[in-house]
């Protein structure tokens, strides 16, 4: 001890008071009391208490990065608390970016509440995502036949056009239209017409389309099929398969059976084609098939 005082008790009293100030007072002096700083260990104790005081204050108001340089049990405990809260911050950020697998297990009761919250979020998000997928599917699907609707078919076709442009691939399109569909509706009722459409959809579905082929219902009794990387001759063969199968497949409706046929027009992508030109050539071919007797395939001229 390099402090020599004539009144040791008075100085002990002062030391205790100045340390108590650090623990209890709302404000502390800017500088440590000069009269005690030569007492062995006083400055260390004073500064340690001050740093811990400041660190706890900072943590309590949300600053988790207050640098604690002092060592020792209390300083260490504050660092442990900082570590927990910072890890929690990191975990919360991870959750915010969609990682719902984060769990806390070092914060007692808070951990349980936090983990329950994350599970709840996870469930809600899963449900929302599923609902979104359902909605998207609904928005893309024709409710009667379950196949792509016109809008989605056009989207897929635009993408295919883009792809074929980029890679220099060719593709073919067929337009199909059920023959005398109006008279089926008029004589047998709309239920029978709907059943005829579903039968047609089933037959296209099982006609041996490949994974990349796609199709949709694009009008009342019209379906369109896109066959990527397929020449018109091969597309005509697929169309023929559909035509023949449909002609010999009975449509069953209310204990009755009847037959229906289809006319199909086929076109193949040409340089400079846009969606409309390609489809309209298939359409023209389709109407030629209609005019020249129905239940047949025509290809673009």
């Amino acid at each position, binding site marked *: 001890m390099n402090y020599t005082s004539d009144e040791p008790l008075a100085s002990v009293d002062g030391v205790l008071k100045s340390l108590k100030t650090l623990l209890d007072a709302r404000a502390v002096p800017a500088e440590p009391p000069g009269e005690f700083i030569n007492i062995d260990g006083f400055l260390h104790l004073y500064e340690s208490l001050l740093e811990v005081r400041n660190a706890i204050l900072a943590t309590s108001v949300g600053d988790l990065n207050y640098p604690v340089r002092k*060592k*020792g*049990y209390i*300083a*260490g*405990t504050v*660092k*442990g608390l*900082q*570590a*927990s809260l*910072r*890890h929690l911050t*990191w975990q919360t950020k*991870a959750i915010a970016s969609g*990682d719902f*697998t*984060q*769990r806390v*297990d*070092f914060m007692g009761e808070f951990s349980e509440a936090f983990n329950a919250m994350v599970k709840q979020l996870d469930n809600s998000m899963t449900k929302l995502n599923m609902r979104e997928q359902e909605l998207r599917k609904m928005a893309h699907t024709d409710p009667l036949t379950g196949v792509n609707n016109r809008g989605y078919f056009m989207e897929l076709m635009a993408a295919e056009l883009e792809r074929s442009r980029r890679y220099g691939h060719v593709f073919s399109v067929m337009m199909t239209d059920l023959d005398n569909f109006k008279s089926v509706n008029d004589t047998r009722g709309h239920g029978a017409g709907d059943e005829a459409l579903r039968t047609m959809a089933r037959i296209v579905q099982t006609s041996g389309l490949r994974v990349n082929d796609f199709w949709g219902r694009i009008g009342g009794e019209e379906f369109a099929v896109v066959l990527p990387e397929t020449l018109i001759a091969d597309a005509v063969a697929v169309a023929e398969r559909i035509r023949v199968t449909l002609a010999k497949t009975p449509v069953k409706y209310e204990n009755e059976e009847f037959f229906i046929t289809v006319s199909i027009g086929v076109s193949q992508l040409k340089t400079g084609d846009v969606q409309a030109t390609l489809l309209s050539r298939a359409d023209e071919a389709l109407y030629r098939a209609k005019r020249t007797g129905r239940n047949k395939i025509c290809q673009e001229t």
Partner: protein
Amino acid sequence: MADDRKYKFSWELLGDIATGRPNLGNKTNLEVYRLLLFTFRDVLESHVGTEMTDRIFYEAGNLSGKEFYANKLTPTNDLGEFVRELQQVLKDMGIGILRLEQADVEAGEFVLTVSEDLDCSGLPELDHEVCVYDEGFIAALLESFSGMKFKVKEIDCWCTGDRTCRFSAKAVKAEP
């Protein structure tokens, strides 16, 4: 040179513990682990000095971390997955409780904390950090995860009066 060596670590050389210890199993007292660690440290220091001993421990930890990653963790590019699995494995194996305080994957800067550390939690106070083996271990884990080289330094240690061990990890940028 390599052929002269009596022992070269591989995970298999840890042996078949279930067969070898049908009664005692995969368990030992932590004192035994620390006894091994710190007697090694003592004898090594007396032979090769403190600095070299620290280097040996860092390198041993590094080898251990590399093997640990390869044998105990699932390779991933996702920091969240990596930290979660690491936390779980470290806890399950009784190595320590890991918390990540800061993470900047791009800059290659991490601060992480290990509580109830296998090596040092509960040790009497010394005036220097002792978890050099952990430093090497953590560096290797981060290296295996990120593909970058890391330098890890223990900045707080139970041994120096902190209640937890805190490590700062920085990617070592390739010399231009």
